[in-house]
Structure formats: C-alpha cells, structure tokens
C-alpha cells in the first residue's frame, strides 16, 4: 500500500509539472501582452514594466524562473491589478469558493448517494422511477440553465432568497443548490448502477437463499462495492464543481476564484492565470489521489493494475 501511494504521489507531482508547463506555454503563446492598454504607453516605460515583470527575457528563461518561484510558493504579482499579488487575491477569494464548493459537494453526496441506494433497492417502483427521472432532468439542466431558473423562481417570483451577492447564509443557498443538484444527479445514477451490479451478483442470491436479512445484504455486503462508481466520480466531480463555479459565481455574483479565473484569462493576467491553474490542478490531483487510495482500500485487486 505504501508503495502504491508513493507511486501515485510521484505521478501526481509529474502531472502538476506537466500542467504547469502546458499552461505556461499556452499563456505565453497568447497574442498580445498583459501590459497593452487602450492608452499608448511610452515605449521606455513599457520596457521598464516588462523588465519589472521579467517579460524582457526569452520565454524559456521566464519559464524556469517562474517555475522556481512557484515551487517556492511565490506566485508573483498580478499583472493587471497593480499592487496586488496573486497570493493576496487567492487568500481573499479562496475561502468563498471553498465554502461554495464543499457545501455543493456535500449536498451532491448527501442527496445523490441515498437516492441512488434507495432507487437500486426498490428498483422498478416509484421510489426508483421518480428519483431517476428527476436526476435525468438534473443532468440535462446544466448549471447555466438551472442557476437562472432557480434565481427566477425563488429570487424574483417568490422573493424568498437573494439572487446575487455574498453577505450571509441566505446568499449561499441558491448557488450551492445550483452546483450541488447537478452533481447529485450524477451521484444518484452512478450509485444506483453500482448497487444494482452488486445486488445482481450470485453471492447475493446465495445470501438470500441462506436467509440473510435484506438490510444486511444491502448495508454489509453490497454497499462497499456499490459505491465504487460514485467514488470514482469524485475526482471529475470536483473538477466539474470548480469549472461550474465559473458559471455559478458569474450568475450569482459570488466573489470567488471562478470569477477571477475567467477574468484573468480574458485580461491576460498571466501570473494570476498560472497561480489559479496551479491551485485548481493541485486540488484535483489531491482529490484523485484520495479517490485512488479509497478505491484500492475498497477493492484491493485494483492495486495490481
């Protein structure tokens, strides 16, 4: 197990390096510069600005410097917002996104997994059909449709909840619901599929024949294996919640990282784009690592892949 984890950690580090390199060169290949503005700048001043940010050096040299800096935890200054560092911006907005993201993930798991288990156990009854139809609808209503609709109904028509901003607990509800329900739908379907696969195994029939209680079969024998598809999906779900936050934060005007990322990419705020990409990628890599470990713990055969 230790060897397995060490191997995966090493792989994760390589992945992060690769992501950094790809992002860096992609950003560097973008036409224009972060310092071009509407007003014409004196070329001498522009030279100085470029020298200050290290843009006078060739790309390959900049890559090495920036990589060393990032490894030291230095993400550099924002190239567009003068006097602010990337670290400051992240420190300001990350808690907001973290709260939104973790609450959404909790909501998704808390609704999706029980719904999936119930649907699998009570298959072909209304307890299966209703949650599964709702979840299909959930999958087909992506965040950018669900968000405005929720805002329209609960914010503007019923007037129960605020539709924008981030000032108190009531502001959290709509964005969380928008992000969470979408993934709840996925978790429900995956859990149902996984549980059904388990419940159809021969050894379940044997257990039933021996007179094992149905609840024991579900909770003791099937749950562990049945949850594997849902657990596997945790990594992609986190990645999706991060990119979903780009949309949800825009719709509900939440001052989180998602908004910053899109703005940074459009403004060519190179350092901020790199810093945020590193942050998102690290989160996803860590999540994938945890998922791998949990998976192996649940199904030791996977270790020998």
């Amino acid at each position, binding site marked *: 197990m230790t060897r397995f984890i060490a191997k995966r950690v090493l792989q994760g580090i390589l992945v992060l390096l690769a992501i950094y390199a*790809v992002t860096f060169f992609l950003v560097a290949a*973008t036409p224009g510069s972060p310092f071009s503005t509407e007003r014409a700048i004196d070329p001498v001043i522009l030279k100085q600005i470029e020298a200050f940010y290290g843009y006078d050096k060739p790309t390959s040299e900049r890559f090495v410097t920036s990589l060393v800096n990032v490894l030291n935890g230095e993400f550099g200054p924002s190239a567009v917002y003068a006097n602010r560092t990337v670290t400051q911006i992240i420190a300001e907005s990350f808690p907001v996104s973290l709260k939104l993201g973790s609450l959404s993930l909790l909501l998704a798991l808390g609704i999706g997994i029980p719904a999936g288990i119930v649907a699998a156990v009570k298959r072909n009854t209304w307890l299966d059909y209703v949650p599964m139809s709702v979840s299909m609808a959930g999958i087909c209503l*992506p965040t950018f449709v669900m968000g405005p609709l929720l805002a329209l109904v609960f914010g503007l028509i019923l007037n129960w909840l605020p539709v924008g901003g981030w000032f108190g607990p009531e502001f959290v509800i709509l964005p969380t619901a928008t992000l969470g329900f979408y993934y709840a739908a996925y978790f429900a379907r995956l859990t149902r599929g996984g549980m059904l696969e388990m419940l*159809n195994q021969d050894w379940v029939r044997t257990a039933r024949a021996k007179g094992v209680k149905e609840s024991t079969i579900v909770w003791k024998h099937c749950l562990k294996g049945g949850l594997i598809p849902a657990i596997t999906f945790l990594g992609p779900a986190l990645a999706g919640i991060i*990119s979903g936050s780009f949309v949800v934060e825009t719709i509900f005007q939440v001052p989180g990282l998602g908004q910053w990322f899109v703005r940074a990419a459009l403004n060519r705020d190179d350092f901020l784009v790199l810093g945020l990409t590193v942050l998102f990628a690290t989160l996803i890599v860590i999540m994938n690592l945890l998922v791998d470990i949990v998976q192996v713990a649940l199904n030791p055969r996977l270790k020998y892949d």
Partner: protein
Amino acid sequence: MTDHSETAVLADEPIPPPTSASEIAEEELVEGSSLWKDAWSRLRKNRLAVGSLFTFIAIVVFCIAGPWLSPWDANTQDLFLGAEGPSSAHWFGTDTLGRDLMVRVMYGGRISLMVGLVATIVALSIGVIYGATAGYLGDKTDASMMRFVDMLYALPFTIFVILLMVAFGRSLWLMFVAIGAVEWLSMARIVRSGVIGLKKQEFVEAAVSLGYSHRRIILRHLIPNVLGPVIVIATLTVPAVMLLEAFLSFLGLGVQPPNASWGVLINEGQQNMEIYPWLLIFPALFFAATLFCLNFIGDGLRDALDPKSAKD
C-alpha cells in the same frame, strides 16, 4: 448498414470452412451482424429510447428545415418592436433587438448540433485509433500511452479549453478541435480495454499468422469489433460536447455574435430573464430536451448493445 443485411442473409447459410483470409474476415462479420440485429430489436422495445429518437429527429428537422419555412430572418432587427412576448406573428416572441426568437433558436440549434457532431467525430477518431493502438501493442507502449491519458485526465479540462479559446481566438473550428481534444480520453480507455480483451482471440492470431500488418489488424479486425461500446459512448459524448460548447458560449468564449448557439441564447436570456423570461425559457427548453433525448438514446443503445448491462 447495407452489408449487415447482406451478412445477415449469409448467416442463415451453412458457412463453408474458411480457406482464405477474406473468408475468415467474413466469418467475423457474420458474428457481428447478428449482434446488430439483436441490438436493434432490443432497442425497438425500449419505448423511452425510441421516443427520444423520434423527438431528437424532430428537433433536428426543426432546426435544419425551420429557417426555410419561417418568414423571419435570424439577424434582421426590428428595434421599434423590441422584445415582445410570444404572439401569432412571432411564436416564441422576439429578443431585445426585435429578432424573431424562433428562427434564432433554429439557427442556434444548427450550430449547437453541429458542434456536438463534429467535435464528437474529432474525439471519436483520436480516441478510437489511440485506444486501439495502445491496447493492441500492449506492454511498455501501452503503459506509457495510457499514462499519458491518465495525465490528461487529471488536467482541469475546462481551464485548458478556456485558455485555448483565449489564446487562439474564438473560432468555431478551434472549438471543435479544443472540445474534441478533451473528450477523446474516455473513448480511448474504452476502446483499449475492448481491444485487450479481443487481441488474445483466435481471429487475431489468425490474422497475425497470415502476416497482416499491425495497421490492418487494428483497422480491419479489432476496431469493427469494439464498435458497440464506441457507438454508445459517442452518443453520450454528443450531449457532453454540447454542454461544453454552451458553457463556453455562456462565458462569452464560444460562438461569437451575430452567430448564436443555444448557449449564447441562454446567456442572453439569463441577462434579461426578469423582464423577458421567454428569452431564457425557449432556448433552455430546446437545449434541455436535446440533452434529454441524447442521453436516453445513449442509455438505450447501451442496454441494447450490451445485454449484460440491462439489469432490469
């Protein structure tokens, strides 16, 4: 599909002992055709999938033929009219610039569906060839090729696509490539595992012993045998791609005005939903219905092509 019906006829005749390479290939096809026939009859019994198929076809026809039948043009503005609710003249109403929303939904659908189709084909071609090659060659080549896929899996896709769209301008063609480049991964994995299961079988051994090139074995013998799962995943990739396109368009990175996709229309509707809710509701309805249908068709195909997965 014509050769399926031909080979289906062949299946009823006694198969002569294989004497040449071509007949070995034919025997393989006979197996395949009965699979397809079974799958078709299973699919036909799945009412949800058939209903979805018809609805989907109706939406496609609506989007393609609709603009020719409508008296309105998608980009002609009528600023005096402005945004009006659905009426007998404009069935879906008009947008803030007085453009007929129904025609815009049709044009948007054309673009959304085209992105879905083209990007899926891009993803399909890369994924199938990559996965089949990795699976067939095996060993170290396979390991390193799949490590690469794992690595890309860990890449935050949307970030990557957003950067691509910003870096290289927002053209439709780039979007096909960018989305296709992202969506081929699961296809590669599925094809690879299918090929690994197949390559130990006798017909591959026979092809190898007849001295066929790797290329021919992969293209002619292995890929046709994994088409079932590939079709399923392709059907499910189309909605995923459309979702990604709409996502990009929503953020203003996708289709650029005056062109519109459903994502663009939903974004426009979202901005005006308080006063003109129909601007959000109609495009959202069509978008969601299309995703709905494609998902059900994909599920139906999976149950039809892989009876083992049809549990209930």
